[in-house]
């Protein structure tokens, strides 16, 4: 038999290629998985009411809109407090200023939400439109005393747009643990808002 040199350890060129091929196929698979994840998460269904339209996430639960809400959707797969988007179309006086609307909204939130605290507020521009952003936190607790659930801490963001004699408020609510990770998707939703 012809004697040949056989690599004793696996640091041969072919072994190195094999190692890199394994790493490569894993990276490619994960990149494909990431792109697929993004495509699944960005699937949306159109929504239009009273001249206000947006692309709402596909597969979310459509809840009964309350008060001036025209949209109220919740992610059924989120843990803790269900991530929620709402759109309100509030009538206002034609000469109402943004500061007045913001003040009234904060007052309303303070009355309707437990332990409501404003974290930040500022003027912003969303898709070229002037808006006002309010970041806040509150506690969501089941009012039924027989439930032994621990209350959820919920982070919220309101974006207020003045539209003639109406103020349109796009709201994002999420469990504090999911707030940052779910924010990107809300930004897409906010970007799709048209009126």
């Amino acid at each position: 038999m012809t004697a040949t040199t056989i690599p004793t350890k696996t640091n041969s060129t072919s072994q190195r290629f094999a190692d890199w091929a394994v790493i490569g196929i894993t990276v490619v698979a994960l990149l494909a998985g990431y792109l697929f994840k993004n495509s699944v998460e960005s699937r949306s269904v159109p929504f239009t009411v009273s001249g206000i339209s947006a692309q709402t996430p596909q597969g979310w639960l459509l809840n009964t809109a309350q008060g001036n809400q025209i949209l109220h959707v919740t992610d059924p797969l989120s843990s803790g407090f269900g991530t929620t988007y709402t759109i309100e179309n509030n009538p206002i006086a034609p000469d109402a200023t943004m500061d007045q609307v913001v003040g009234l909204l904060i007052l309303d939130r303070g009355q309707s939400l437990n332990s409501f605290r404003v974290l930040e507020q500022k003027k912003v521009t969303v898709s070229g439109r002037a808006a006002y952003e309010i970041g806040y936190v509150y506690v969501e607790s089941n009012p039924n005393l027989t439930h032994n659930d621990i209350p959820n801490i919920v982070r919220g963001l309101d974006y207020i747009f003045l539209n003639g004699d109406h103020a349109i408020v796009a709201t994002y609510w999420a469990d504090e643990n999911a707030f940052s990770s779910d924010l990107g998707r809300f930004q897409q939703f906010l970007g799709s808002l048209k009126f």
Partner: protein
Amino acid sequence: MPETVCCVCGDPGTKTIGPRWFCEKHFQSATHERPHTWRSSILLVAGLVVFVGVVYALDLVLKPVWVGTELIVAGVFLALIPAIIWMGFFYIQDRLEPEPKGYILGVFLLGAIMAAAVGIPLVDNFFQVSKWIYTDTAATILGSILVVGFIQEFLKYASVRYSVYLTPEFDEATDGIIYATAAGLGYATVLNIQFVIASGGAALGSSVIRMVVVALAQASFAGITGYFLGRARFEHKPWWWMAAGLSLAAVGNGLFNWLRGLVVQGGISLTGASANPWMGLVLAAVVALVTLGLILWLIRRNTRTALAEK
């Protein structure tokens, strides 16, 4: 003329299998058929099924009322049982042809550390799989393969490839399966402990089925990765061989997740939702037996073919 050396230890080679040289000792190891590996695998599956039956029966008869810490401690203990059963059987079966127990335990711990430090954070936090993977069938299958399958199988592969793979103790193709199974069970143990802690404890009856299903699945698909690792170590394989093996294991892993969801799924009626976890156990046991049986048969056939050609 170049020196001919053993591909395991580097000592002068005296015999060959295919194009690879072996010293006398490692030629014996490489051509030795290890029936105990197959027996350990069958005993693992049977032992785990018996374990489920015993815990389920105890839960029905004793109806323990555990809460809080008691429940978590019981759940963590149960999560360790599959690995303990396998290592116990392996130790008994391996007396005549021992693998270093320290290496086996080390790879098991490495698999566990990989799961806790890399696998679970990647799957749960970075990819946030639970938020999108159940959207539809395509998302379930592709997400299970591309994300969950590849992450889990790569980490099990890495646990073996970058630890014992180059040591003289890794001296036969079957060692790939043994060490990869240890890594898979380490991974499964951490997945089960995470499940127990995340759910605030484990109801004995139903949780033990889930734990055993996870352990069997992780061990089976790690076995596929281990088969490719073992053959790559002792044969000249093309550069894509190991990548193809890992992909096969990842696809199997992902398809199993999807299938398990289908068979476990019950129905929703006026009295509430129902599920059938026992079907998941049957599926996992069948997959484990078929997978491990197939790869051990392939190794045996390959050894015999190589010797016949010689």
